[in-house]
């Protein structure tokens, strides 16, 4: 363990359940660019997620959070380290193997902009049924499962015939969430799923995610905003400049952050009771971090 990462609560097996993790990232390095222009997007990142667990991954601009998401989804190949999804080492998987993995519905994803996860030419019904049909579920059963799933994302059957363009932003994001979850995957990676939504829709999507946890799916909830993750996450992992600087129970990370960056992050978040730190504390913390 490097000197820069003293605040990890035994990062690798901190799920503490003794159950095989559904996601296990170990010593992940991702470098972009050739020799001289080489940039380290991720450095030595280790994180595991237990079945049914919700982990909030927090990072600001340039933290590497999107690179980590893309690596876990097989869109970026790591320079070093490994990614194990549900017991299967996917680090060296070929495009075909990844396609297979997605087809089996082990891992799914939701992006910030639902239009990126939804085909604009497919009706809501077709969009939701598609991942089931790909898995070989019979058409009739797929339709039934789609209908049965709708109430869990608080959508009515009236929407089934519509196209994504005919829905509100909040409805679209709920469809994207439904599409990711209808196959009952083991793991869903959500990249800024509520950042583009207004308050009412944000609350609704967060409530839905909270409810869905009961079904045993593990969620990795990525956000730049600690405030939008704190309330749904079991654990919070903080990425700063490509390194995981703190991992712990949400309550501990928010209530007693240890790394200076986490302290600054928590201390900067506006809350209804003012910012948790005052101006001079924040100034002192900034001075502790590299410019």
């Amino acid at each position, binding site marked *: 363990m490097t000197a820069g990462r003293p605040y990890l609560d035994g990062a690798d097996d901190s799920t503490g359940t003794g159950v095989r993790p559904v996601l296990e990232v170990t010593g992940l390095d991702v470098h972009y660019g050739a020799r001289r222009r080489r940039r380290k997007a991720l450095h030595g990142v280790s994180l595991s997620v237990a079945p049914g667990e919700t982990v909030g991954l927090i990072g600001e601009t340039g933290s590497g959070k999107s690179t980590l998401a893309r690596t876990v989804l097989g869109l970026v190949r790591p320079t070093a380290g490994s990614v194990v999804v549900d017991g299967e080492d996917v680090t060296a998987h070929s495009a075909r193997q990844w396609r297979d993995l997605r087809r089996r519905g082990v891992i799914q994803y939701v992006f910030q902009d639902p239009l990126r996860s939804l085909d604009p030419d497919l009706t809501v019904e077709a969009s939701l049924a598609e991942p089931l049909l790909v898995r070989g579920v019979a058409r009739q059963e797929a339709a039934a499962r789609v209908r049965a799933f709708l109430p869990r994302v608080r959508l009515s059957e009236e929407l089934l015939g519509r196209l994504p363009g005919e829905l509100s932003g909040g409805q679209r994001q709920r469809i994207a969430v439904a599409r990711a979850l209808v196959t009952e995957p083991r793991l869903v990676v959500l990249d800024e799923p509520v950042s583009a939504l207004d308050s009412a829709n944000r609350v609704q999507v967060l409530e839905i995610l909270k409810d869905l946890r009961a079904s045993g799916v593990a969620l990795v909830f990525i956000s730049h905003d600690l405030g939008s993750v704190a309330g749904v996450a079991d654990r919070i992992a903080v990425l700063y400049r490509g390194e995981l600087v703190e991992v712990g129970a949400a309550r501990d990370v928010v209530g007693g952050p240890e790394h200076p960056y986490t302290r600054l992050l928590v201390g900067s*978040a506006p809350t209804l009771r003012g910012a948790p730190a005052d101006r001079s504390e*924040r100034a002192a913390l900034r001075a502790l971090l590299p410019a």
Partner: protein
Amino acid sequence: MTTVSEKLLTRAEETGTPGPAEPPDRAVPLLSLRGVRIADGSDGREIVHGVSFELTPGKVVGIVGESGSGKTLTCRAALGILPPHFEVTGGSVEIEGTDISTLTPARWTALRGATISAVFQDPASYLNPSLRIGRQIAEVVRVKKGLGRRAARERVLALLRAVHLRDPELVHDQYPFELSGGMLQRVLIAAAIAADPRILVADEATTALDVTVQAEILDLLADLRERAGLALVVVSHDLAVVAQLCDEVLVMRRGEVVEQGPTRAVLDDPRHDYTRLLISEHEQYGLEKFLGRPGEES
């Protein structure tokens, strides 16, 4: 009367707790909106259904609402920069006692920057990408203050220092693309206060920034208010941003002010369902869940 920038620039060695620089002048508010209604002239639809508030020196009024709530139109009406087709169809806006509907374009030009100024969400789009930072702020200073080249440079550097940019000399000679979003927003604030306005409108000025950078900009705004008595209108979709900075808050929804009052009172005893929703989002899903209740040890 001392100006905003003089106070900012001379305070350097002062210690102790800075209070509001001037006693609130109750007689003539800096900015006063009374029952302002705004309509889309192309179809006659009313978009904003009556907004009223008063801004005295050193006071901070916050407007919170979603996109489409009318908060930005309200600000634009106060600045006299409504988009094409939009017009104020009822009520009045007064700046230092003058009804803005009586202002000629020349008077408006004199007023903007020197009395009322603004910063918006996307700082990069308000700067010329092909001019160095220093030159762009110097232009404001030279036109508005009539300073010569050398004096303008000194003043620009002082302004860059006043917005806590780490290396003012370096930033002075840089181009916009070389700066981060947080630095650009500081530059915009420096330009906005260059002509010593008494009112600054900050419309979603921190929305596009990282939380840690947002805190720096909010700290800077609080600082300007305390040290220079600058009056602020802070517009945000986030109730917490508004709560942190403002004395009074207006909650807008679909063109309507659904709740208005002293910030503490609105937070402690919200009357409207929409305000309750905004509060409960924080209480249930925000950091507030893990931080102590007000008055508790956290």
